[in-house]
């Protein structure tokens, strides 16, 4: 994660996200990375921090998103991953838990629910005929209910679960999750499900980078116009 720091799947995602947006992504830079991430998928179907670890929502998102960027999603067992993540939506609360047998947490609205657009895309690319053309494979309304009814702080901001205090991290990821739950697809194939009043509608977010899709396009275009730095420049 930083020099002398921890090594886990998050850094692979950070590196892949930055490299792809700034147009410095080369096969050499990520040689072996995709295979290493695939080894982080375990018997539960989800992905852990490093090979051997327990499956965890945050790490799973980072792993899958990194593989999407590297175009190597097929290295994973997508079926067991789908089974694991869909099992993480809580039937009573509507929100998601980070790991089996743990409590619901607003931030997993993004880390977990955000996996479904990625999986949808990967399965679609494989020619899966059973995929919906209107909905993600999780209960979008139930998630929105959890976020809107349980995760808002009356003074503004969002949080983990009722009783917790607000913070920027939870505000960011509850809102990101809400955006995912409200918007299916993109472009021509775009379906919206907005719970409550129309004012609840958020702008869509890019499922890989979690920034506005237009911003992703802008960033990519911008860096494409820059000269790519040679290796010597990285002194």
């Amino acid at each position, binding site marked *: 994660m930083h020099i002398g720091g921890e090594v886990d799947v998050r850094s692979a995602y950070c590196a892949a996200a930055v490299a792809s947006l700034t147009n410095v992504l080369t096969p050499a830079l990520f040689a072996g990375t995709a295979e290493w991430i695939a080894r982080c998928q375990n018997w539960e179907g989800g992905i852990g921090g490093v090979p051997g670890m327990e499956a965890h929502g945050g790490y799973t998102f980072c792993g899958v998103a990194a593989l999407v960027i590297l175009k190597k999603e097929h290295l994973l*067992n997508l079926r067991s991953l789908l089974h694991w993540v869909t099992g993480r939506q809580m039937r009573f609360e509507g929100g998601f838990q980070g790991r089996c047998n743990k409590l619901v947490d607003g931030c997993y609205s993004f880390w977990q629910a955000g996996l479904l657009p990625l999986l949808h895309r990967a399965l679609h690319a494989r020619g899966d005929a059973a995929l919906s053309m209107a909905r993600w494979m999780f209960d979008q309304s139930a998630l929105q209910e959890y976020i809107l009814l349980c995760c808002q702080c009356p003074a503004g901001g969002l949080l983990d679960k009722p009783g917790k205090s607000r913070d920027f991290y939870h505000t960011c990821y509850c809102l990101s999750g809400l955006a995912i739950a409200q918007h299916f697809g993109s472009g021509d194939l775009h379906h919206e499900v907005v719970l409550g009043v129309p004012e609840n509608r958020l702008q869509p977010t890019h499922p890989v980078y979690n920034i506005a899709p237009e911003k992703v396009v802008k960033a990519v275009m911008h860096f494409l116009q820059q000269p790519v730095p040679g290796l010597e420049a990285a002194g």
Partner: protein
Amino acid sequence: DEIGLIPCPEARYNRSPIVLVENKLGVESWCVKFLLPYVHNKLLLYRQRKQWLNKDELIDITCTLLLLNPDFTTAWNVRKELILSGTLNPLKDLHLGKLALTKFPKSPETWIHRRWVLQQLIQENSLPTVVNKGNLGAAPVERIHRLVQEEMNVCSEAAGRYPSNYNAWSHRIWVLQHVGKLTVKVLLDELTSTKYWVSMHVSDHSGFHYRQFLLKSLIGRTVNDDNTLVRNQMVNEQNPSLQKEEEGQGAEAPGVEEWNVDISRYLEEELDLCTDLIDTYPGHETLWCHSDETFHNSHPSPATSHMAQAMDVDGLNESSSKQGYTQETKRLKRAPMQDSFGPEMEYRFVDKVLSTCRDVDQARFATAYRKWLVSFLGQ
């Protein structure tokens, strides 16, 4: 052996806020808002080269800081420098970390630093002339064993202080992989010593995941090439060279079959444990998950071997684990799998649960497990 904060919003008496009772250190809360910024500032000034601190002062200041906030990476890094320069005994940091974890059992930076320290100690240990930094003059193997045991204790304590403590259990796995070298002995010891703990923490998914890790590592260890038995028995603290493994290969072949039988026994015991706990504590998803997976492992098919192989936890490179694949499936199939915990028993167990349970969640898990059994065994 433990630290804590004593809620005490005002300094009523003119006395030190430090309280030491029966080897437990308490700090009255009122002083933290003075103490923490003071030491924090001192350290930052040192780092910015605006104010010098000698090594004793550095040790004291970082120690104080880390007991108040162990996620302060800079403080740990200062101690890394002190260790590397030889002025600080790495064992002290293990002790400091252990203390910090009594109050902050999740602290990521504490666990990360701990792994760095252990790596330093392992490297030291593998040098031909080992420098005794305050260690007792024990043999290298004994030292490693003690380190591993201590880490297991620290992890266990931290796991008890916070439910499903991901960082503690991850660290435990890391220690077995990198310090314990996943020897059969250490895996079996851990299987025994964690059995009681998981029975007392039936919703702790991390605890049960750890047992899956142990069982899978055992499967990997005993069903892989003969090479691995050499490593187990010699408990070699150095990374065995490829040459050494090849030398030992022929001699250990007879041992493989006896380990195979044991694996079935451990898996069967695990299923028994699951069954008991599921009966005793209805409605815990973790127990069903664990049961699923254990059953899965006792009846491997080519499809599941892929997953088992993908779970290669001992860090071998990709090509060697893929080579092990076909040998692994062949040996698993040859091993005498007892029918006593076969499908019939599982169906009977599930049906019994369904007919007698009153817990809604338990019924749901049992139904799902039954469906899964049908589809899995139908293959």
